[in-house]
């Protein structure tokens, strides 16, 4: 259990213990100390715990495990294990160019819970569609992939800046006028994974 989760569970147990004390000995509220106990255990601590829990849940949702826990995302997880450096996500994942435990979030920073309110609503809709609605055959990004996600790491890197192909279009890349994916176009390609050689069969 990670430390924040352990701390959260400990805080929940303390709060429940205080509530138990109050429920079993309600006469405590007759005294000032008992009323403070009631305020702490029935108002302040529950709100603090729920706030901390929400923050921990949002942190959880950055994890690769979280993203790939929906069946429809499994091929995208497999595409990270392709034994072919032409696959951009696979190359990044396998060579630790993105943290493996938050690989999806690193390149899709404006997705679902992390974007604006629209993105958050879309995230809730995804859960609805996953269980009740009809999952589309082709999953597409809502907006064209933003170069910002690439330049966050590559921008300023010597290998990127000194590259002869990048130099003449550097300003266009920064303005998102030319997409990085115009040249680096082998991305997840989930429909072409059958028969492709894999680096590993499962996530390390």
């Amino acid at each position, binding site marked *: *259990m990670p430390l924040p*989760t352990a701390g*959260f*569970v400990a805080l*929940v*147990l303390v*709060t*429940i213990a205080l*509530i*138990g004390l*109050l*429920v079993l000995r*309600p006469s405590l*509220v007759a005294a000032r100390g008992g009323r403070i106990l*009631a305020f702490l*255990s*029935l*108002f302040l601590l*529950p*709100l603090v*715990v*729920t706030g901390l*829990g*929400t923050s*921990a*849940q949002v942190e*959880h*949702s950055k*994890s690769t*495990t*979280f993203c790939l*826990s*929906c069946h429809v995302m499994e091929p995208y997880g497999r595409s990270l294990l392709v034994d072919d450096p032409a696959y951009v996500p696979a190359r990044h994942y396998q060579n630790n160019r993105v943290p493996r435990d938050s690989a999806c979030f690193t390149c899709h920073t404006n997705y679902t819970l992390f974007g604006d309110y629209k993105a958050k609503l879309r*995230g*809730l809709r*995804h*859960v609805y569609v*996953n*269980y009740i609605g009809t999952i589309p055959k082709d999953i597409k990004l809502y907006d064209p992939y933003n170069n910002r996600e690439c330049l966050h790491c590559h921008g300023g890197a010597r290998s990127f800046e000194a590259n002869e192909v990048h130099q003449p279009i550097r300003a266009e890349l920064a303005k998102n006028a030319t997409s990085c994916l115009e040249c680096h176009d082998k991305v997840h390609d989930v429909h072409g994974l059958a028969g492709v050689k894999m680096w590993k069969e499962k996530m390390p």
Partner: protein
Amino acid sequence: MTAAAPPPLIRRLRVSGLLVALGLAVEAVTLLWSHPTAFLVFLGLGGLLVGAGVLVYLFAIATYTSPPSRPG
């Protein structure tokens, strides 16, 4: 002889305590599971129960009237 019913304040505090404890337990359990459904249950069930418990607590203290003092 039957036991007297607890005063409304105590009854409401007990209900509030039960709701909050249940909600916190739900929240703690969902945090051990990294899945979108866990997030929904955390907010939709845990958050709802905690919120309801807090509201019952606020209602209990807002509607509490202290017993009249004995003439002396």
